[in-house]
């Protein structure tokens, strides 16, 4: 279960002897593991443009004879290293010291697919490798990254899992998939990232807005989903995973196949399908909670030393049912839902996916090209197109029964280019530009007034980053980014709402047409944002290191924060955006202490985040409609602070047994009115005992205890509502968090040899072993139903 990866460095030390002119030069050196000094055997050192190469021997040494020119380029590669291009000038320098990032597989199954490398040097970054992600094949990206302390999720039921990084989510968390910034209506809490976890080779999670290359507005953090790595050698490999689970009677299959050629050509395809019916809590069936997901991706290209290109396409369709009992008509229904100990609608198990439900299709097309220039650097050019089509089906009557209530199509085009100057391996620079154009179309065929209006968005950004190595122990990182965003919307307002908001005074000039009860308006807003990041990494000794980091980031308001206006059925509230909302500004400082030893490893991450003009949804009053009265939640801006500590400790008792603790603590405060922020994760501590024995067919087993405290700091948004039936006012308790809970999970796996070369990995998992009933504060359906009960899962993974 360990998500630990071992980061070691390889020192590749080249020495050379100048023996004479005219192809008599000799090039010798040694490759060693930086971490413990052991020689790296089998690394290849190849002179570019020539067939001349050497392989390190059992002591890590190599020699290349008969070199003609003193200036040349070499490629250094090892099966578990990122390959490195180095400029050699035998006249200029007598000793080349090159660092490669090297990652050794924890298990002895060194596979090409699980290679990972960090995207940043001085950020709070954690990498989840392929073997960890494979455990979540039946679940989602949001479930998988909760392996990382400080990462939680805000859920709508159990299938819509939205990542929360250090208390922040939605538009504050940027998701990159295959170097494409995911544009999938991510502003909505009930919109989970449209990523098939089975297409990911690894996932990097960067807390805070320090990965400026991806964007300047990731106040919460960045999730980088990397595809499987491709190596230029002749091979054909693939993997198939099949799984089944008892809860929800779910099943899934995922299969991938990659063909690579030593000339650098490659083609890779992946497809997955999963299906599940109604899930169950320990005491009842959660009616209408099934889901169905179909995904495939295909990419092909050529990867050479000097240049390469790739075409990529991915398709994902998710159909997710939403708990029937969460669809309510008015506050009285909400009161009934909260007071009833179990969901109001409980039907027998079914695979049916009925309203309320979501149906989202996300397609990505991408083309990239890179060119490496000798003694200079590397230029990357990329264009991507994304098409996100989201349907939300409500419970409707009559002819509209099968018509979606929301039908949004978001098309995004992005062009970006980066230039990396890495001829000097000590100090590298990167500059980049990005141009994006987005078009949102809210289809009027729904017959329901648009939640999000039609809009066009234009984005332009550029950045520059530098990595500087001061000496062997210190490295520095700094970056600056500028972003321009323009949002040009055409929206209908009810005239009564327009006037009630006071827009008739402030925005009278943007009205295009007056339809009497409705107004068509054309708001156009421009935002200019500057983001800055700076970090320092200090290696105290072979085992310990420190990282300090500062990030300034600005985020322009999203379409929902500006424009939303209407009744939200699942929350029984009227949500209002505000055209006056300005950007929010985050200043975040963080520090990390990391120790990696033979007996133990420790990683402590702390942060403090001050967000000025934090855009926040807050109750502001009650409005009465013919359905009854509803609380009104308005988007406002406040000043907020968040701070927290995330801890990850492992103690290796012996070769077989490990104990691990992962804990996260966070506090969030609304400084403007001196009260707690809503939806801040409670303190969580996870203890794991793990056993492994390679002799027993790579047997692994672990027992995990997950203890989540009660959130005692929350804003009190309770209100009183008149209940005509009883002719009385009742308190609607929408604020009080549920009680603490403690659940146990078990997991084990082993390899089953079938042929000489191939094996099947068999994994058996039990979640919520004791079938504990509990509710989670960060589940938006917590008012209506318990979380999932015991779930047995079995997974077979074939590598070939």
């Amino acid at each position, binding site marked *: 279960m360990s998500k630990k990866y071992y980061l070691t460095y390889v020192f590749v030390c080249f020495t050379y002897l100048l023996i004479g002119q005219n192809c008599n030069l000799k090039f010798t050196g040694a490759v060693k593991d930086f971490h413990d000094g052991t020689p790296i055997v089998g690394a290849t050192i190849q002179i570019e443009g020539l067939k001349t190469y050497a392989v390190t021997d059992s002591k890590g040494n190599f020699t290349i004879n008969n070199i003609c020119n003193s200036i040349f380029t070499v490629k250094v590669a090892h099966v578990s290293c990122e390959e490195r291009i180095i400029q050699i000038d035998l006249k200029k320098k007598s000793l080349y010291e090159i660092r490669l990032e090297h990652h050794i597989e924890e298990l002895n199954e060194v596979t090409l697919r699980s290679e990972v490398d960090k995207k940043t040097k001085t950020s709070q970054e954690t990498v989840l490798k392929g073997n960890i992600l494979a455990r979540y094949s039946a679940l989602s990206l949001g479930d998988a990254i909760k392996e990382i302390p400080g990462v939680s999720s805000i859920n709508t039921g159990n299938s819509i899992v939205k990542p929360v990084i250090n208390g922040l989510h939605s538009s504050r968390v940027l998701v990159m998939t295959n170097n494409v910034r995911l544009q999938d209506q991510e502003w909505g809490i009930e919109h989970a990232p449209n990523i098939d976890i089975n297409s990911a080779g690894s996932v990097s999670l960067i807390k805070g807005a320090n990965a400026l290359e991806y964007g300047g507005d990731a106040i919460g953090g960045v999730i980088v989903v990397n595809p499987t790595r491709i190596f230029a050698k002749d091979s054909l490999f693939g993997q198939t995973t099949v799984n089944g689970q008892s809860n929800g009677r779910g099943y899934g299959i995922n299969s991938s196949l990659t063909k690579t050629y030593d000339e650098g050509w490659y083609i890779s395809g992946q497809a997955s399908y999963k299906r599940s019916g109604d899930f169950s809590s320990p005491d009842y069936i959660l009616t209408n909670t099934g889901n169905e997901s179909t995904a495939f991706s295909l990419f092909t290209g050529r990867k050479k030393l000097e240049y390469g290109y790739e075409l990529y396409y991915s398709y994902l369709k998710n159909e997710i049912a939403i708990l029937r009992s969460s*669809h*309510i*008509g*008015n506050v*009285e*229904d909400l009161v*009934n839902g909260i007071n009833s100990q179990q969901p*109001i*609608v409980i039907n027998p198990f079914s695979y049916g996916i009925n309203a309320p439900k979501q149906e989202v299709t996300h397609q990505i097309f991408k083309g990239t090209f890179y060119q490496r220039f000798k003694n200079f650097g590397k230029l990357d050019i990329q264009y991507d197109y994304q098409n996100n089509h989201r349907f939300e089906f409500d*419970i*409707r*009557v*009559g002819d*509209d029964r099968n018509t979606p209530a929301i039908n949004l199509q978001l*098309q995004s*085009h992005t*062009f970006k280019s980066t230039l990396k100057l890495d001829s000097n391996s000590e100090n590298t620079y990167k500059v980049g*530009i990005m*141009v994006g*154009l987005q*078009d949102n*179309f*809210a289809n*009027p065929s*729904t*017959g*329901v*007034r*648009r939640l999000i*209006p*039609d809009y*066009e968005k234009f984005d*332009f950004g550029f950045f520059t980053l530098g990595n500087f190595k001061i000496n062997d122990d210190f490295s520095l990182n700094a970056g600056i980014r500028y972003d321009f965003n323009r949002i040009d919307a*055409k929206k*209908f307002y*009810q*005239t*009564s*709402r327009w006037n*009630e908001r006071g827009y008739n005074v402030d925005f009278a000039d943007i009205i*295009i*047409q007056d*339809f009497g*009860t*409705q107004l*068509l308006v054309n708001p156009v807003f421009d935002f200019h944002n500057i983001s800055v990041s700076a970090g320092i990494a200090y290696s105290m000794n072979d085992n310990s290191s420190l990282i300090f980091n500062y990030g300034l980031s600005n985020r322009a308001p999203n379409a929902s924060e500006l424009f939303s206006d*209407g*009744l939200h059925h699942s929350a029984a509230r*009227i949500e209002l955006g505000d055209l006056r909302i300005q950007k929010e500004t985050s200043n975040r400082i963080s520090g990390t202490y990391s120790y990696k030893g033979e007996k133990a490893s420790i990683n402590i991450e702390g942060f403090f985040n001050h967000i000025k003009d934090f855009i926040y949804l807050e109750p502001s009053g009650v*409005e*009465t*409609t*013919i*359905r*009854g009265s509803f609380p009104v939640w308005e988007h406002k801006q406040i000043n907020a602070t968040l701070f927290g500590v995330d801890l990850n400790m492992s103690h290796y008792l012996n070769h077989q047994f490990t104990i691990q603790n992962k804990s996260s603590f966070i506090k969030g405060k609304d400084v403007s009115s001196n009260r707690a922020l809503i939806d801040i994760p409670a303190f969580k501590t996870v203890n794991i005992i793990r056993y492994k024995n390679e002799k027993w067919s790579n047997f692994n087993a672990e027992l995990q205890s997950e203890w989540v405290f009660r959130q005692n700091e929350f804003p009190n948004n309770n209100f009183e509502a*008149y209940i*005509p*039936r009883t*002719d009385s006012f009742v308190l609607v308790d929408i604020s009080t968090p549920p009680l603490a809970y403690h659940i146990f999970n078990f997991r084990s796996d082993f390899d089953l040899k079938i042929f000489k070369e191939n094996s099947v990995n068999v994994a058996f998992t039990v979640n919520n072993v004791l079938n504990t009933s509990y509710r989670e504060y960060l589940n938006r359906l917590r008012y209506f139903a318990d979380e999932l009960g015991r779930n047995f899962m079995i997974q077979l993974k074939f590598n070939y």
Partner: protein
Amino acid sequence: MRLKLVHLSFIAFAAVLSCNDNDDPIIINEEEVITTVTATLTPVGGGTIITLQSRDLDGDGPNDPVITISGNLAPNTTYSGAIEVLNETVTPAENITEEVEEEGDEHQFFFTPTNNVVTVAYADMDINGDPIGIEFTLRTTNASSGNLTVTLIHEPNKNAAGVSSGDITNAGGETDAEATFAIGVQ
């Protein structure tokens, strides 16, 4: 220069792809919105017809519904009642009563009095023989006052205890409309 070209080419690209909304978006007049619930009470054997109306012309908008009661009910009188549900955001107004009637097995009106100001009994039934409540009878006794709440529930559990006799407690479902009228009997 390159930037400008890129910029231009993308605008061209987007113009091609988003031709469906270069024009202004189409106005949506919601058809399912209930703006008006009117209960007409006709005294059996003659007398003044009383109407109870809740009207919210901006739907989910900020304006509150306007409640209109044409007058007091007479004591010890039986009224035959009928409900009309309208969507007045469209012209001409859409009569939603017909839809409720067609899907009668999925809808039910509930009449919840306080202070026993009136008693209400159903006078219609759906295909399963359960009440809908579009037609009903209302009886008054001695002079009194209290509230009468009319609630339209979508997908109630009509088999639950008390529901078919008009008790909303176990009905479940979702509220499509709800209006409370202050009734005087004199």
